[in-house]
């Protein structure tokens, strides 16, 4: 096993993800690369095919635009195209998300871009416990896995951390969290708010506000984009009868659309009111503070969406 990427050794990762690892494991296994994403992702893929288990850091998900060919035309397809002869146990560790005015090329979320490619598993934890459990699951998997963490959940004060509910007791012992298993953070009876990553925290705050208005919201954290816990989503919505989906990725053709498709395909009659999506509008991330805040799937937009589902449908 080795870690490879830009600034992972001497700096310990742009967001501090690999601090101390080079000292502990040595420069041969924690490898600083040139700024050559296509090159080092290709190299990591070949090493994985030859029996290694590389972890590739891409600090900003935006940078997959530079190297996407190696991910989606080669790494993701090699197991299938080889008829199962070559495994690619490769884990990407990727930061995403905005809210700190880093503008259009350093703030995207892009779950859907990665999730759209067959052969890649995509997960995103909302707290420290899930972060370790999902990472351990990725590292044990024999496929291409993408472990994505919202930058505001990575524990850095200058990005607005800590979010109180993102802190959790993390056991020293080894544990895993299966792919495709959502987590109910808060039970409710009137409306299901589906989120993932940072939007789980926004949904929890929204649920507090809604409770004060007498609306009981259930907060479901997908944790895993691929595979998606379709059963878990349907079960919760069948119980509450109302659905809000909150995601920081672009609105169209994304996680929010897929969650709505679950209900539409299984049984739309469980809905007492039309579902509402709270996602990033289909524009690049603007720089200016008021413009970016306007676009984010923040607490206010989630609360408003939940109210809408309560007023538009039959009660």
């Amino acid at each position: 096993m080795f870690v490879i990427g830009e600034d992972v050794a001497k700096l310990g990762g742009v967001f501090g993800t690999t601090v101390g690892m080079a000292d502990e494991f040595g420069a041969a296994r924690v490898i600083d690369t040139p700024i050559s994403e296509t090159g080092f992702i290709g190299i990591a893929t070949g090493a994985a095919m030859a029996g290694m288990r590389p972890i590739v850091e891409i600090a900003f998900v935006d940078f997959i635009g530079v190297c996407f060919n190696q991910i989606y035309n080669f790494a993701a397809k090699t197991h299938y195209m080889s008829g199962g002869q070559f495994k690619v146990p490769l884990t990407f560790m990727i930061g995403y998300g905005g809210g700190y005015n880093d503008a259009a090329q350093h703030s995207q979320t892009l779950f859907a871009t990665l999730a759209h490619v067959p052969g890649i598993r995509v997960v995103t934890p909302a707290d420290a416990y899930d972060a370790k459990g999902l990472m351990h699951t990725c590292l044990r998997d024999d496929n291409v896995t993408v472990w994505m963490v919202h930058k505001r959940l990575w524990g850095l004060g200058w990005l607005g951390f800590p979010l109180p509910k993102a802190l959790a007791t993390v056991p020293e012992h080894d544990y895993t969290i299966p792919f495709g298993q959502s987590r109910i953070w808060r039970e409710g009876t009137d409306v299901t708010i589906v989120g993932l990553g940072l939007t789980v925290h926004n949904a929890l705050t929204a649920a507090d506000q809604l409770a004060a208005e007498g609306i009981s919201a259930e907060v479901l954290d997908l944790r895993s984009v691929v595979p998606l816990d379709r059963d878990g989503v349907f079960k919760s919505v069948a119980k509450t009868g109302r659905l809000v989906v909150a995601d920081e990725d672009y609105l169209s053709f994304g996680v929010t659309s897929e969650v709505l498709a679950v209900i539409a395909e299984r049984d739309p009659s469980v809905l007492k009111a039309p579902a509402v999506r709270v996602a990033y509008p289909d524009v690049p991330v603007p720089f200016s503070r008021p413009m970016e805040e306007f676009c984010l799937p923040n607490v206010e937009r989630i609360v408003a969406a939940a109210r809408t589902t309560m007023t538009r449908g039959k009660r």
Partner: protein
Amino acid sequence: MGKGPLPGEMHQSFGQEPCAVGVCAHLGKDDAVGAGHRPHHVAVAHGVDLNKMVAELFGKKTGLSGGRGGHMHLYDANVNFFSSGIIAEGMGPGAGMALARKMQGKPGIAVAFVGDGAANQGAFHEVLNMVGLWKLPFICVIEDNKYGVSVSKKDSTAIDRNSDRASSYALAGEYVGGNDPDLIFAAAGRAVERARRGEGGTILELETERLHGHFIGDSGAYRPEAERKAMKDPIPTYRQRLLAENAATPADVAALEAKVQTQVDEAMRFGRESAYPDASDALQRLYA
């Protein structure tokens, strides 16, 4: 090809055989080989299972990948072989296999075959920089057939010799003209020894000929007629030389050619007669 037994397009290797043979003669099963969208001669030379390869070309269940790959995506894990249909895409995975061997202390080197067009791709340069930086046991073989589909090398490439690019990456660079199996064999031997001794990588640029079009159905009419007429098929040329230099008797040559023809006939029969996969197998093998 539309309705014939071979589905899809087909990039043929006619004329480029000396590159594959001259390099792969130095390699064993521990050595990894990656090829591009025109992979067949390299696959055969590296010892990929011929029957399974042909069955894969026909899209049959008995193919290398059970029909999921096709002619541009040939994989044989038994001899550490892979190919990719995207230009220069095999550079990174090839170098990664070299890195894995180095990290694991295992024997073997890695070789990626690309065309001259690949030298203008970003992956080519990014990977060779890291090969030089980390002294990986890796050889980039450039089969210079002078064309990227219809665009000639002189219309696409700012320098005459892509092996000159080795100096940018602290690699050895060697050019071999003439599509000559013996000269290629000798130069490849030097590159392979350098890699095996841990002295680093090489760009091995081999002049060759694309005797046919880019794929079956491409007449190559965009090439000057004089240039097309001047191309020589290296196989009869080499046969003639072996006989002229008394390196082989006509009987030796005839026996060898008959043996190879039998293997090819058997592979074609195996491929044609094998069954197609169940259509729903399309949904299997996505994940390990």
